[in-house]
């Protein structure tokens, strides 16, 4: 991605040329909000018993870290000034919005995990081995079906039989042990 702008191109203006990097300013805002929330949580820690009064209080390190995060975060919007590539150095990976496929993938994975308790771990794994390839454009059923049946079964057998891990059996009571 180039940092130069053609005449009439207002990309630079929209992104905020000059001292402050607009996107990093937003990142700083998120970090400061996180720090503020974390600091607020530290104010709710229980009082320490007198017996432990000589020890470092439980909120000490978290607060020290929160202040460190705040101090470093406020420098973020100016960091591009020190990079040889300028703002392009940081904008390469985020020049395009997050692809809808990433959101769909994340959504699918959340649904699969959500289904484990009633559908069982095994069926959830089979589901992901069918649905994710389909979502990502794979249409060769002759590959998908054997893969979705064999791979999760082998992994489940390895962890259940060999390593003795107990998995959610779900409503169908599928237990590999």
């Amino acid at each position, binding site marked *: 991605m180039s940092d130069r702008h053609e005449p009439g191109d207002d990309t630079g203006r929209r992104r905020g040329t000059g001292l402050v990097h607009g996107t990093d300013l937003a990142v700083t805002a998120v970090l400061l909000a996180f720090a503020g929330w974390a600091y607020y949580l530290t104010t709710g820690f229980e009082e320490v018993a007198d017996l432990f009064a000589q020890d470092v209080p439980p909120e000490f390190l978290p607060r020290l870290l929160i202040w460190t995060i705040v101090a470093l975060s406020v420098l973020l919007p100016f960091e591009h000034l020190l990079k040889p590539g300028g703002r392009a150095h940081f904008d390469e990976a985020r020049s395009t919005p997050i692809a809808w496929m990433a959101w769909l993938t994340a959504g699918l994975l959340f649904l699969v995990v959500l289904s484990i308790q009633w559908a069982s771990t095994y069926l*959830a794994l089979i589901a992901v081995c069918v649905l994710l390839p389909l979502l990502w*454009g794979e249409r060769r059923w002759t590959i998908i079906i054997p893969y979705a049946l064999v791979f999760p079964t082998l992994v489940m057998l390895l962890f259940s039989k060999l390593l003795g*891990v107990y998995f959610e059996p779900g409503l169908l009571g599928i237990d590999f042990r």
Partner: protein
Amino acid sequence: MEPILEGFSLIASPFNVTLIFAGVLIGVVVGALPGLSSPMAVALLLPFTIQLEPVPAIAMMAALYCAGTFGGSITAILINAPGAPPAAATALDGYPMAARGAAGRALGIAAISSICGGVFSLLVFLLAAPLLARIATSFRPMEYFALAVFALSMLASISGKSSLRNLIAGAVGVLISTVGIHLTTGVERFTFDIPELTEGINFIPVLIGLFAMGELLNQSQKLDAVYERITAVVVRLPDREDFRRIRGTILRSSGIGTFIGILPAEGATVAAIMGYNEARRWAKNKEEFGTGCPEGIAGPEAANNAATGGAMVPTLALGIPGSGTTAIILAALIMHGFRPGPFLMKETPEFMYAIFIAMLLANIMFLAIGLVGAKVFSRVTLIPRALLWPSVFVFSLIGAYSTGASLFDVWVMLIAGLVGFIMLRHGFGPAPLVMGLILGSLVEESLSQSMILLDNQWLRFFESPIVNVFFALTVIGLTWPWLKALASKVFRRTPVAEASGE
């Protein structure tokens, strides 16, 4: 001599050698596959190794670490897509050489340089680790605190988009490590009345989420990527002329890589970039670099493999991870009930020698695999992504779940993955956060113990000369990247290659 023999006997069983071989195979495959990385593979392997004895578990992970670094060079050379970040510099000259029809020669140079770098660093590991551990036995909590702070400050200079972002991620990692019951006072912190959080956040789901899930979401955006492939490879060992040309580069890069590896937090990517840049700086034929120069392959390959052995030195001798991957190995050691550091070296030296022998064996194995199977391993990129990444998810889910048989950990993994994906977009790498997470307990414990010993008087920290040295190094570590950036801005100097990865 006795601990070395004991270490050898710990490794010399068919089961352990098979596990090391499996680690090497997985490492080469993972290294060769763009998107998959050694830290991710080690994180996914961690739940499986929990069930093993400590020696084979750590030996397998160490073997994967060594082989993964080499595996990246195969795809860097053959398809100009570094399988792992440490191999990025190898592609600069490896691919042009392969494109000229000398892919076998390029792979041969990479394999020989890698093993030389690896063995060199292991010899340094053998000498330096016990020495460092002996020095560290005199460390009190104050010195450990200063050392941990120094290690965190080194995050400023590890590879990645920016020093600032690395430091922020490291601080967030330490903050996450404070979740749970405070060790000395018993007060609950950030637990939200969730019983699973009272003992703190489990390392493994976070590691898997950051390294594997984050990359899975990243890969979902690259489904159309196509690689230009160079086929018909017969790996050829370097001839006399090549050896003459690269021997100095290998030696220099092995030294650089080992030194970079020993520095806390610095990984193989930084070593490879420095190895490449130094090879170019010392070369008489600078203009050949970028067109398929043997030194341009030998430099980064010797350095990145040397960094693996180097990184094990602070990990085992001090309990301070030398890189992102060794941070996960450190977590594995802790999960196996070890407290890595000088006492581990003092009380069970045979353990360290067993790891040394395992890594040496791994180097020999990946050389053989590289020579015989490079052609096969270059084909792993033919595995459809639409099947590869669901498999990664299956391992991630099972891995996150199996450590505590808890669905809560699976949710932690998913959330860590989503956070890691967004972090990566904004230049925050997962490795610094993991370093912070793993060093967090050492920071807090040593700080608490120090303050008790020092009667809560901060200034008494500076009474210890070792503490002063570490604090001075911390200041240098924190300011160096800024000074360097400022200098390059003022003098308009641009590095030949830049790092982004572990």
